[in-house]
């Protein structure tokens, strides 16, 4: 078993975390504009974003603060918008080498965001904690700074720039899911079905009322359950498919 902290793991984490960090800054900037409307100062935005690291969750919380919601609503909002992190945590638990200490497991779990999870799960073999930590650290610093910058300078960027920056995250998602789709036709099937059903749910009667967070939760559980049933995978002992 290799040592926990290896220099190349840290390097790889920083390398893969940098594009995520840039995308985070842009998204957090627009989040900061909403946070400002809710009454957060730049310092509050930084602390909140640094420790929460949840785009949809934070968005939900700030909109609730803006309308002076009660505490229970804040907790409910966090549960719903971040439920997918439970699934990701369960999945990531399978990518951590046996014998890794509980402290590392807990810290790695705290690092989970959509993107950090995405690159951690895509790491070959067991995911080294140092890889996840370094990617999470650099991206979180940019995320928190972006939110503060948005609070301070919100509204100063032209709408065309904000519009263009807003797709950075989605581009990254695509870069994470397409290469495995090319290697594994079952993943490709799952991804295509996800695109189609998600698109339908956004326009279909009744379900179009769902928030993006709800849609993500319901469709992820539903599609994963069906695809896992139709196309079960044989995983080897290292956890690689």
């Amino acid at each position: 078993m290799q040592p926990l902290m290896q220099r190349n793991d840290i390097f790889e984490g920083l390398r893969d975390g940098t594009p995520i960090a840039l995308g985070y800054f842009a998204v957090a900037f627009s989040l900061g504009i909403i946070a400002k409307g809710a009454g957060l100062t730049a310092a509050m935005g930084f602390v909140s974003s640094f420790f929460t690291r949840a785009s949809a969750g934070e968005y939900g919380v700030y909109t609730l603060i803006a309308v002076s919601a009660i505490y229970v609503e804040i907790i409910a909002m966090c549960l719903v918008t971040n439920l997918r992190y439970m699934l990701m945590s369960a999945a990531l638990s399978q990518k951590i080498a046996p014998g890794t200490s509980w402290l590392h497991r807990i810290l790695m779990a705290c690092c989970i965001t959509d993107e950090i999870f995405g690159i951690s799960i895509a790491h070959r073999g067991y995911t080294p904690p140092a890889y996840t930590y370094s990617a999470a650290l650099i991206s979180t610093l940019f995320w928190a700074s972006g939110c503060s910058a948005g609070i301070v300078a919100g509204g100063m960027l032209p709408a065309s720039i904000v519009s263009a920056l807003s797709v950075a995250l989605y581009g990254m998602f695509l870069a994470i899911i397409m290469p495995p789709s090319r290697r594994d036709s079952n993943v490709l099937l799952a991804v295509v079905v996800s695109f189609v059903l998600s698109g339908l749910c956004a326009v279909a009667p009744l379900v179009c009322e769902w928030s993006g967070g709800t849609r993500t939760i319901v469709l992820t559980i539903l599609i994963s359950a069906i695809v896992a049933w139709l196309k079960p995978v044989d995983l080897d002992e290292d956890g690689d498919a």
Partner: protein
Amino acid sequence: MKMETRDIIICIALAIVTTNLIRVLPMVLIKGRIRHRYVRSFLYYVPYITLAVMTFPSIVQTTMSPLSGLVAFVVGVVAAWRGLGLFPVAAICCAIVYVMDFLLTLL
């Protein structure tokens, strides 16, 4: 009616605790490797499906014009399929939206 600073801080603290508990609980509760084939298959597909669901149709809904988001989506899929990394794909998508939004305003 705006919230008092103290209330905002309590809300932020609640959000931090709740969000991180959600992340940590499964990791702490699941001991060792999951042997169950169906559960392993389910967890194998979850990340790809989550990211796919979050990408589409949101990418089309966040841009100034849905058309530019749609083009960015298609080109992003092709670029990622061809093996371009996280940053190049993201940059290409941003550039397309910027240029498309600009061109559409000329029409």
